[in-house]
């Protein structure tokens, strides 16, 4: 009784002292990470939001101007075009990456020999630095003496050069192609993991029930892959909407402003023109757009996992 009583007292004491101590240790361990995040992510983010309500620029210390920068966006033709292009670019690139990524993943899952080789080759574009990828594609797209034009010319498919990067419409397609090429391996990798996790019994049961390959894909594979699909859509959607390096390396937002994404435009206004107030307002718009895309697909992913 005594023992039990003393034991009970001891455990209560232990609970009293140990839990807060453990909690303190835990907090102390994560504190550096929180501090770093606050210093390098959250702090600058709030600073950007604050700057977006000022007219600070290189020669002007800046003063509070309320929502003036945001109102100005409504009549900024370049911004409106960039916003439209960013949405179109994000949608096109994300959809293409998802569809083609799934297709490639399914094909690669059939490979039984030299799997290491096919996987390595597939992953090469993904491990390439974005600016390097842009440079490679710039060489391919060169209009005078570029590899693509020379190939097309050799096969007699064209007479004059294709204006890959100097025709506004073609340039938009060219940057999307580059982005898809670059990010497809990651998507395929995620889908390969998703496909591998689908229990073989499900496919087997469907086959026994007489389902053809298309039906098995539609009624078994696709529903089982739903979490992977939302994961891909979330990450690629957020990634594409913030695309900067590939565009900067390929077209610098041109010709004219045809391929200027919000990220490129924010960079131009903030860094090149040193218009910190307006540049920050564009960055905040981009942040909201990214959060909206990420938030929507994260919610769908959460629901798919339940």
């Amino acid at each position: 009784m005594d023992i039990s009583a003393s034991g009970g007292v001891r455990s209560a004491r232990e609970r009293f002292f140990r839990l807060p101590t453990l909690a303190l240790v835990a907090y102390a361990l994560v504190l550096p990470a929180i501090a770093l995040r606050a210093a390098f992510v959250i702090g600058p983010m709030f600073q950007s939001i604050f700057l977006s309500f000022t007219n600070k620029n290189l020669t002007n210390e800046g003063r509070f101007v309320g929502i003036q920068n945001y109102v100005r966006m409504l009549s900024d033709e370049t911004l409106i075009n960039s916003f439209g292009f960013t949405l179109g670019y994000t949608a096109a690139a994300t959809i293409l990456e998802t569809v083609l990524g799934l297709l490639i993943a399914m094909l690669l899952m059939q490979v039984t020999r030299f799997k290491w080789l096919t996987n390595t080759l597939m992953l090469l574009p993904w491990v390439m630095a974005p600016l390097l990828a842009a440079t490679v594609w710039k060489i391919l797209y060169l209009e005078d003496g570029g590899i693509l034009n020379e190939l097309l010319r050799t096969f007699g498919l064209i007479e004059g050069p294709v204006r890959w990067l100097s025709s506004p419409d073609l340039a938009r397609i060219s940057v999307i192609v580059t982005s898809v090429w670059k990010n497809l391996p990651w998507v395929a990798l995620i889908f390969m993991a998703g496909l591998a996790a689908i229990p073989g019994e499900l496919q087997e049961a469907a086959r026994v029930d007489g389902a053809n390959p298309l039906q098995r894909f539609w009624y078994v594979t696709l529903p089982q892959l739903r979490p992977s699909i939302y994961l891909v859509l979330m990450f690629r959607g957020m990634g594409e909407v913030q695309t900067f390096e590939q565009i900067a390396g390929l077209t610098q937002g041109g010709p004219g402003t045809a391929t200027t994404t919000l990220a490129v435009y924010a960079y131009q206004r903030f860094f090149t023109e040193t218009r910190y107030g307006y540049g920050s307002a564009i960055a905040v718009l981009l942040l909201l757009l990214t959060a909206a895309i990420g938030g929507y697909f994260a919610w769908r992913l959460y629901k798919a996992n339940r």
Partner: protein
Amino acid sequence: MTIGLSRRSFLKSAAATGAALSLGVRTTAAQEAARTVNVVGWNSPDHQEILLNAGKELGITVKYDVLPAAWNDVMQKITLWGQSGYDGVDILFADDLIGGLWGMNGWADDLSGLDVSSKVQGDLVDNIAALNSAAGGIYRQFFLLDAEPFYYNKKLVPTAPKTWDEMTTVAQSVTGGDVWGWRPLGGNGHAFNTVLLMLNQAGADLESLSDPETLAALQYMYDWVQTSKITPPSTVNEDNTTVEALAAAGKAAMWWSYGGSLKNVPSIDGSTLSIDDIGVARYPAGPASDIGLVHGWGFLSPKASANKAAAHELLNYLGQPEQVRNLVLKTNAPPPLKSLLADPEIQAKVPLIMANGGWENTIRGAKFREPIVNHRQVTQLWTMIDKLGAYILSGQKSPADAQAWAMSEYQTIKDEA
């Protein structure tokens, strides 16, 4: 023999010795720092060597650091230095953009008071004198002056056209296959110069861009690609390296590039042109004039410099004609001093100064990108003019729409000042 030394007197003398030693060290360190000059310049061993040798001559320690490789990085770094009053740079290599940014925002010393400034004043080429006058001070001590000359392939165009209209006609007559009549620089930030060339030649009001002359210049540029088709649409992506390679391949009848083009084009592997095949001329005249553009690099003295006396001593030395001559010979670019134009060694190294009836003829009246480079918001204006070129050369905006955009942008920049 014993020396009577109490503990008290020992401590006193030790303290005195320590103080004397540490003060001495500090004084020496301070003297050394004052005789050290931090230079930030090109990634060029030749320049570094000249600066280091100059330092040795004067008993000054020169610490040479290089500018970042990417231009955007350069601008961000030096803008931050200027804004924050960074005192770690005593001499900065500066082009027109950096010079304008620092000079007009009060971050650079006015070097008018240097002995060498008054010594070479009368020897400076007129374009530099005009820039200094427009800027209201001497913010750079120039060590080279380059230009954006008009070049032509003599095999395709035997004589240079004299007017805009004539240029279009000549260009149309030779355009075909892979050959384009006129290849200006339109990409990677070079459209800025193309636009300014045409605005100047049209007689546009660069303070507002709202006049009919501005529209005429934009229309002329628009027509190159869209109407008269003497320039390929790819011009929006072409910089000096690309245009020079295309000229070397015989794919450009006329082009503009920087001063080095005359030597670069024949030296490109497989070039179809020798230096004698390339003509240099004054620009075909627009409605107002036939003037071109010049640009230059010079030494700038940051106001926040912590070692100003030694830095100015070095600048006084480097600005002497014989030192400028050394720099010119290493750079292979035209000199900023008239007296050096007659130097046979420089003439041999820089054949451009002998072309077109002499360098003074080529650069006569050429502007230093005023009033952009003598404006506090030089960066914003520079970007705006470059974007204007991108809109026009890509055909994304009509000349009227592009002008309206530029006027509105100009107004915003002025309002933000």
